[in-house]
């Protein structure tokens, strides 16, 4: 009896260990697939000797060197581009969040004429094409005298249907009782939105922030069109200088790409915690 229960316990423990091993094996193998190309770029950026195209490929760099990182930083003077990128991303992201959070509120909570029309218009932006959009927006910004300014880079993408829909969805999942209570107390809609709704919508906002961040950060074509002065370029645009007939250092390309990617990963890593815990918290509350 005693031995049998011990055996059973041992079996259960072994099963549990096996489960965890299996789980981690699965987690690691998926991670290898998703990060493989990134790891190769990282490894290439840390190599200084040998053939980039070696067959069979060399995975672990030997010796590890930061020369490419330093070299590409100095060649392109990346610090100024990094500052531009941070500016564009920070302001662009902030405005996207504010504008979407405002617009989503009446769509989630109020009945008003024109609502369906607005919905239709928002959805249509996801589907309808605008092949000449780049040219037309360029002309508009020119008329607004915004060409060659950083706002020209982020303004066109601030109002977007996705952000509004995502936050509307979040608002809908928040019980309306608290708002009604605040309304009874005589609070205005703006105050309710700011004090009651927004704090509860944090997970949705975090999700939108994560998803929107990289759009601003990695955008390279549009800045090139609207900025005339290369000193205003974001880093993704500046890295284009590494590709060309006379630019032949593949390791620099890899190193430069690392500079553009790592900040995004750091942001996701830190926001991700908040996003998940915030989401769980909101759902409990």
């Amino acid at each position: 009896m005693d031995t049998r229960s011990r055996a059973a316990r041992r079996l259960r423990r072994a099963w549990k260990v096996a489960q965890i091993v299996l789980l981690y094996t699965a987690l690691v193998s998926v991670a290898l697939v998703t990060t493989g190309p990134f790891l190769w770029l990282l490894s290439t950026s840390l190599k200084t000797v040998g053939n980039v195209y070696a067959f069979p490929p060399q995975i672990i760099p030997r010796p590890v060197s930061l020369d490419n990182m330093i070299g590409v930083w100095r060649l392109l003077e990346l610090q100024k581009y990094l500052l531009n990128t941070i500016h564009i991303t920070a302001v662009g992201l902030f405005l996207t969040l504010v504008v979407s959070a405002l617009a989503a509120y009446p769509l989630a909570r109020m009945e008003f004429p024109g609502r369906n029309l607005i919905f239709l218009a928002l959805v249509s932006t996801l589907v309808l094409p605008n092949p000449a959009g780049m040219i037309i927006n360029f002309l508009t910004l020119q008329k607004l005298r915004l060409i060659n300014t950083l706002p020209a880079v982020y303004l066109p993408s601030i109002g977007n249907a996705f952000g509004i829909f995502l936050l509307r969805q979040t608002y809908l999942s928040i019980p309306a009782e608290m708002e009604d209570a605040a309304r009874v107390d005589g609070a205005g809609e703006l105050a309710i939105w700011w004090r009651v709704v927004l704090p509860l919508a944090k997970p949705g906002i975090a999700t939108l922030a994560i998803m929107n961040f990289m759009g601003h950060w990695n955008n390279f074509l549009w800045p090139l069109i609207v900025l005339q002065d290369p000193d205003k370029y974001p880093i993704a645009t500046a890295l284009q200088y590494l590709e060309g007939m006379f630019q032949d250092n593949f390791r620099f390309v890899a190193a430069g790409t690392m500079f553009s990617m790592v900040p995004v990963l750091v942001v996701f890593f830190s926001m991700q915690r908040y996003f998940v815990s915030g989401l769980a918290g909101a759902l409990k509350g």
Partner: protein
Amino acid sequence: MRGRLKLAAVLAAMCLVFALMAGGGEAARETRLEFWTISLQPMFNDYINGIIKDYEKANPGVKIVWKDLPIGVITTKLTAAIAGGIAPDVVNLNTGMAVSLAERRSLVNIGKEFPQYKDVYFEGLWNSARFEDGIYAFPWYVVTHVMMYNKAIFEKAGLDPASPPITWEEITECAKQIKAKTGLYGFMPHVNFVADLIELGVPLTSEDKTRATFNTPDAVAKLQWYQDLMKNDIIPRETLQAGYAGALDRYQAGQLGMIVTGPQFISRIKTNAPDVYKNTMIAPYPLSKGKVVGAPLMNLVVPKASKNWSEAAKFAAHVTGDEAQLAFCKLVTILPSTKKAAEDPFFTQTDGTIESIARKIAASQLKHAVESDLTLRHSLDLLDALTVQVEAAFYGEKTPKEALDQAVAEWNKILQRKD
């Protein structure tokens, strides 16, 4: 209902406001010329800024503003700038882009407005950006082809690295031997059948450009050659699709015996594949019957929308002039498009490095250089029609003769089109 109307009114008003806000031009006190180049920054900052400084000194009242752009976006940015009425004055484009803009009547006809420059450049290159009866660009720097080969692979295959193949027949034999002895591919051509036809001296169309004429025995033989190479697995099956980049990747990996390429790629091999660089040697690119070689060319164009197009052309002529081009060629393995610059002893001497050998070999073929892009009306459609047939012959679905006859028939239809 009323809200809906209100919204519509607001939207309409906003559209109207933006439609009415007219963009103002800038008043120019001095002649300000905007100069766009492709991917020269930051490597050639000193060189370009030097040219600009000299030019501004020699031409008081002219101010040059230089902007460098990546190749992938230059036409997009140019389109936006022209639409916005802030067109640049001098723009670096490759021939294909230049001709497609010329087709849209958006470039200054250099041949008509500035015929005095004609004799400065090699004839074949001056005629590159030809569309109908106009010449729409100043030829700038150019690269002709050389053949690079991997000495180590030659030795492994029992070939003598000191006597590389110099005719297409010899290249074919070498490629066969390398494949048989080492298992590696010996050769991977970059297939551009229009260039092949031009190099063979096969006329693409009749004089009046109403009929295609390229189904000649020479053309059939060339296509047959490709078909045999494919059938016998002498060249990789991906040859037709992988193009330039694919062949270069394979060569850099040390997996290819010979490659035809521009000499400027040597420095790329040196940086990325030092082991292969050490084993690389250069041989001339074999001339075919037509005694011409296709050469990718960079041009400077002047958009019609330029406010100072006459001044702009003068500056473009300066940048593409003898002196400036010679200085440029000393910085990187490219060749000049002007006759006088090419006569400089710099292009006939070598210092023993493969870069200088490549430069010498490539420069010796400059007089044969022509642009190999199609510059006929509907060139994209013509190219498609030919490519489909060449592909069919490559994979043995048709005999070369059938394929070319079919391509000629398709071309005749397109050439007759009036739109």
